């Protein structure tokens, strides 16, 4: 075991910090919170111009590319800085899937647009009737007969839930049902649809945590076959590749670190009604020490999948272990901070007040409330805690399959 920093990764971390310092403005952060759209075109394109999206991740079916540890660090730093990075994560994920599975058409027509930062993608997996059971997707793609000699065209009908950033996206990756008679994992086909095809419509879905997501409707959308990604009825194989990319690398699990840093700084100035500083209250000190321990453990668990990928190995349940611990620890921390802040912990100037965060002193601008609103969704998206536990029970502990 060796916990020594890897020089190349630390250099990369420094370069990302410099990039963030040079390109991320307070206005971008404020706008993201105000609109709930955690994507900023100016920031995204500046980052894409560094070549990071084109470089991609090494090890997942490709020889060259960035060390997965570096990509872990990229998203870690983005999260710590509060940078809007959802578009980046989606773009890198879909670009990775295209590289592994896409056709020549995808490679030449679509991939460069992701690499250059011109376009981002939304993920069309969940539906109103299927979340955790994502392979139960009911959105239909049917062959339209009568195109002999010409390109096959598909007719797509259905709805996709939680299509975050679809309102900014050039493409949506879409899991569809092509054969209802086959067992559920085998009757699926993946498409990558350009958002300008007629018949695609979406509505905003606002969330408690301030993120804007969407529901997207597909009504008689005529989709030429060149937009199919992977084999007909091979959609689950594509899904597995997409999930492998997502696993522990393209995201930020260390939200508790930022929360603790901000809360401890604030607790050094905030006073109880009797005049004692919060940071001098033994109860507060114990709870903050607990958060610090959780953060330390989260950091170690979170880096492990990236580390395995970096060593050319395939993470199995390590991603589930990290995600489960990180998200539950974040909830514990957010809840504790909100309680310790007392009534101030309820203030949410970023919700419903039309912004104005810049006018408020840092202590009161609502970062505690924001964390308390944001934390619950982390135990849901990317696989609920129950799904992660099922995965751990079955594949790590060897318990019988129970669903």
């Amino acid at each position, binding site marked *: 075991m060796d916990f020594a920093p890897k020089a190349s990764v*630390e250099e990369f971390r420094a370069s990302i910090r410099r990039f963030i310092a040079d390109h991320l403005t307070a206005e971008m952060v404020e706008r993201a919170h105000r609109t709930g759209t955690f994507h900023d075109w100016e920031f995204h394109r500046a980052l894409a111009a560094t070549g990071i999206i084109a470089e991609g991740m090494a090890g997942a079916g490709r020889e060259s590319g960035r060390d997965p540890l570096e990509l872990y660090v990229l998203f870690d730093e983005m999260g710590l800085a509060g940078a809007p990075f959802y578009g980046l994560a989606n773009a890198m994920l879909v670009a990775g899937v295209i590289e592994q599975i896409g056709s020549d058409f995808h490679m030449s027509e679509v991939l460069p647009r992701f690499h250059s930062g011109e376009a981002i993608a939304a993920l069309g997996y969940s539906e109103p009737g299927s979340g955790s059971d994502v392979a139960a997707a009911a959105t239909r793609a049917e062959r339209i007969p009568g195109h002999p000699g010409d390109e096959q065209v598909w007719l797509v009908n259905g709805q996709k839930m939680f299509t975050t950033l679809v309102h900014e996206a050039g493409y949506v990756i879409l899991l569809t049902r092509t054969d209802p008679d086959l067992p559920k994992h085998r009757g699926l086909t993946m498409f990558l649809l350009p958002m300008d095809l007629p018949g695609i419509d979406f509505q905003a879905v606002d969330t408690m945590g301030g993120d804007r997501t969407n529901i997207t409707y597909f009504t008689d959308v005529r989709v030429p076959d060149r937009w199919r990604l992977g084999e007909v009825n091979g959609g689950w194989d594509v899904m597995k590749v997409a999930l492998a990319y997502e696993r522990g690398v393209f995201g930020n699990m*260390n939200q508790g670190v930022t929360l603790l840093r901000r809360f401890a700084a604030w607790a050094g100035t905030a006073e109880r009604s009797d005049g004692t500083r919060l940071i001098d209250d033994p109860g507060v000190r*114990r709870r903050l020490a607990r958060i610090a321990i959780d953060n330390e453990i989260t950091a*170690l668990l979170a880096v492990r999948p990236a580390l395995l990928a970096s060593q050319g190995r395939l993470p199995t349940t390590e991603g589930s272990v990290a995600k489960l611990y990180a998200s539950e620890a974040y909830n514990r921390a957010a809840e504790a901070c909100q309680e310790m802040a007392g009534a101030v912990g309820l203030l949410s100037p970023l919700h419903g007040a039309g912004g104005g965060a810049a006018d408020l002193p840092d202590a009161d601008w609502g970062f505690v409330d924001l964390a308390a609103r944001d934390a619950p969704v982390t135990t849901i998206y990317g696989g609920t805690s129950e799904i992660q*536990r099922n995965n751990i*029970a079955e594949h790590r502990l060897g*318990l019988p399959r*129970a669903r």
Partner: protein
Amino acid sequence: MSTVRDARYGAQVDLELTADQKTVRDAFARFFADRSPLTVVRDAEPLGYAPALWARLRETGAPGMGVPEKLGGGGATALDLVLLMQEAGRTLAPVPLAEHLAATRTLARTAAGAGAPWFADAVEGDVLAAPALHPAVEGTTRLVPGGAVADVVVGLDGGDLVAVRSDAPMTAPPNHACAPLADRVLRGPGVHERIVLASGADAAALFARMRTDWQLATAAALTGLAARALEIGIAYTLERRQFDRPIAAFQAVQQGLADLVAPLDGITLLTARAAWTDDEGDAADAARLASMAFLAASEVARNTTYRALHYHGGYGVTLEYDIQLFFRRARGWPLVLGDPDEEYLRLADRLFGPAAGPGTGPRAGDGAGQSTGGAR
């Protein structure tokens, strides 16, 4: 106020054991599996000490592993000691190994300790040493772990860190963990030999370091204990049938077992991280991490043994089943340091600087005052 040190490990090279580390672990895994089956653990109750096991362990060189080679010891890294203690913890080995390692490392850090006439015997394991975790009050330090069987006790008495040789009582007050605890005197009648190892600030610093060593060794032992308890719990749920199927097939049981994995992985990594930091020579950061590892491992061992016992149903609380052996030690081993809330406050001092206001001066345990420990 000091700034919070961010917990971020973006760049570690390797979380896997090296070949040498695997050799250490495998050798001790075999040793404890062979020499410390649970029958030995049961036979050693209630005192919690198996002299024959200690004699065997002595032959492996484990008692002196933590002492530098130039002083006749094994010169092992802190990480090697963690691997050793994990294996000892897995089998609940009824020997005061964490205690002996912490005490002998402390002796080795002072000229007076390393020059003691019995120091070489302590390195060999012929003289058993134990760390008094709480400063003596009127010459007596309470409930020393390993104190029931130790020939030498290292502890803080007034402003001095002392090594005291006296007769081991070879009896312990009946206790939850069947641990060889005992009150020991650090001066006065019954003391054969009393060596002052250090005084004043040096004494306080060495005392704090000894507690850190003990915390790290105990965290490692608790990690092994928790890992084994989880295995026992899983094995039982796969074997026990209710409603015509193994209870491990029920999701309610599976989710509860799966919940124990991430915390267990977490303390395993955190304990290794603390040891590695110690080996790198960053003592202050190692102390912070050892405190964290100790607190986290205490909680994880408590939770893991609680749930593993719970899934045994009524059999879990019968003395016939082994899980209760783990349950009791998970609580008993760490509690000798005192109420964990005190340790959380000491950790907070390290993280946020000392608190202002009445009653919040430097805290006991860093050597600068009296600790309530587990005694009051």
